[in-house]
């Protein structure tokens, strides 16, 4: 893996956004060649989305030939509920960019047949040629998407019941009222994300530090599902200083020492203006 450590949240968000920007532009997307991006929600990626929007508004990055697949969506929450992941993606990303609505895929938590919806989602990913870059976050319990502790590391898109840790973490979005938080969600599986050609995990904040430690310094374990990516050939973990608080000094020093190599991935920052 690459472990990219930036000083703070803003710098980590910016690094991640630059990386995504460069990957898309270097891919040279076009009419017969779409770049497929897996996308997360939550508070961690907000800074990254803001930077991507900035690059778009500056004319440096277009999403015209990008297809997106979100990781998850709550079950039973109306699509236009302010806390649904559809609302999140619309307000924080889609409404600010030029993506074709037909290419923005999010699981429908109100489908009549939820498993069929999940199967159809897997099929759409396959038909799109697989995911080029899957961006994700990590839960305080070490989960990727809603693959809660105990999820199979080869799982596919399916219905999951949320763990108490996750419900507690999400309560802040529902006026702190636990009874209002959805208890079920549709989520891509660990296996689904592992199929992506490249994976980037964003982790910021001290409250995620223990999960990061478990994910990269301990073994592959279904109790900390992000650990599965130790077996992926191309994973990048982008984090801030606070997220490294539970790691060994040795690990942190090693990867900080590699920053000059990591930074070659984002510098120079490409632009579609140069007719790439």
């Amino acid at each position, binding site marked *: 893996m690459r472990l990219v450590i930036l000083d703070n949240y803003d710098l980590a968000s910016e690094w991640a956004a630059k990386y995504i920007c460069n990957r898309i532009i270097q891919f040279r997307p076009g009419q017969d060649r779409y770049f497929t991006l897996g996308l997360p929600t939550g508070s961690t990626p907000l800074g990254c989305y803001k930077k991507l929007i900035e690059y778009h508004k500056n004319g440096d990055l277009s999403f015209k030939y990008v297809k997106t697949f979100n990781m998850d969506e709550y079950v039973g929450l109306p*699509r*236009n509920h302010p806390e649904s992941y*559809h*609302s999140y993606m*619309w*307000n924080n990303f*889609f*409404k600010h960019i*030029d993506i*074709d*609505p*037909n290419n*923005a895929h*999010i699981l429908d938590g109100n489908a009549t047949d939820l498993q069929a919806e999940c199967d159809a989602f897997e099929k759409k990913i396959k038909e799109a040629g697989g995911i080029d870059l899957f961006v994700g976050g990590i839960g305080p319990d070490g989960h990727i998407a809603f693959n809660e502790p105990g999820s199979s590391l080869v799982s596919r898109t399916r219905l999951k019941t949320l763990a108490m840790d996750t419900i507690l973490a999400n309560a802040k979005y529902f006026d702190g009222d636990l009874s209002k938080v959805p208890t079920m969600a549709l989520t891509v599986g660990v296996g689904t994300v592992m199929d992506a050609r490249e994976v980037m995990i964003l982790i910021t904040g001290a409250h995620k530090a223990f999960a990061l430690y478990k994910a990269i310094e301990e073994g592959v374990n279904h109790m900390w599902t992000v650990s599965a990516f130790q077996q992926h050939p191309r994973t990048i973990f982008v984090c801030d200083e606070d997220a490294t608080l539970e790691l060994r000094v040795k690990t942190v020093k090693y990867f900080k020492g590699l920053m000059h190599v990591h930074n070659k991935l984002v510098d120079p920052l490409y632009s579609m203006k140069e007719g790439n």
Partner: protein
Amino acid sequence: MRGGQGAARAPVIQFTNCRILRGGALLREDLWVRGGRILDPEKLFFEERRVADEQRDCGGCILAPGFIDVQINGGFGVDFSQASEDVGSGVALVARRILSHGVTSFCPTLVTSPLEVYHKVLPQIPVKSGGPHGAGVLGVHLEGPFISREKRGAHPEAHLRSFEADAFQDVLATYGGLDNVRIVTLAPELGHSQEVIRALTALGICVSLGHSVADLGTAEEAVQSGATFITHLFNAMLPFHHRDPGIVGLLTSDRLPAGRHIFYGMIADGIHTNPAALRIAHRAHPKGTNTLSGSIAPMDTCVRHFLQATGCSVESALEAASLHPAQLLGLEKRKGTLDFGADADFVVLDDSLHVRATYISGELVWQVEEARP
């Protein structure tokens, strides 16, 4: 939201680079319009999977709901109360000219007049949708003749009336019918007025109190009978008195029916009302304030003056000219708001609240000179 058959195929226009008045706040959001109505872009994206057909850059301006003037007696040389063969042209002229003031809907107002005038004029002022031809006519505001002699102001004394025994029939006979009528201003101290108020309210007509010497008790009774508006607060009524605040006391009365909201119009032109009085009223009852032009100062001038005199927020001043009149007339789902599904009647304002452009049903109906091609 669809505005009707075929509206789904109508072009989607996205107004960008603007701040819109929504939910009482100025938000940095785009305004989406289709088929003459405000559109929910999130629904468009996820359900119809469509984007805008056209984007229009608003240059950082404020987009507010179109202003609604519920009391305008004429203007530009036209007097609605003048019995003429062609009242329609006069109304049309005013309707077109007030577009430049940001007014997208209005109630042509007739002052106290002889029966013949009502019978001749009223049928010539039908309710009409707005458009490039002019602001929409919501219905006529009949200010008089059932008002107080003492507080008639400029109304002709000879044509004042009081209610006869069969009061409602008297009303019908006087006006010749209530078909195009939206608001009636009367003095509630007149005998039989309570039954008239009840009858008019039952017909869906807004009853307003004004040109009156009523005390607070009488005014409260009128509200209990259905009155919901006060015509040009402070003007043509008894002044506030600490032992009997009169009609002005309705702003803070605790004897109004539960859940009922009293609205009041103020002519905020810097002449009819002292700024301190504007402030007292607005602070006492901010949700009820309606700015009126009363055909003297243009509506946008009144909004600016009201903002400056009361020191209220821009949002409050804009709502006083749009949302509150719409609420008064029970139209707040379609007018006076930029909520999804509402009619796309809106005004483009610069930061000092000068009108740059006016839109009705999503169509540009007026813009400032230098913007024209």
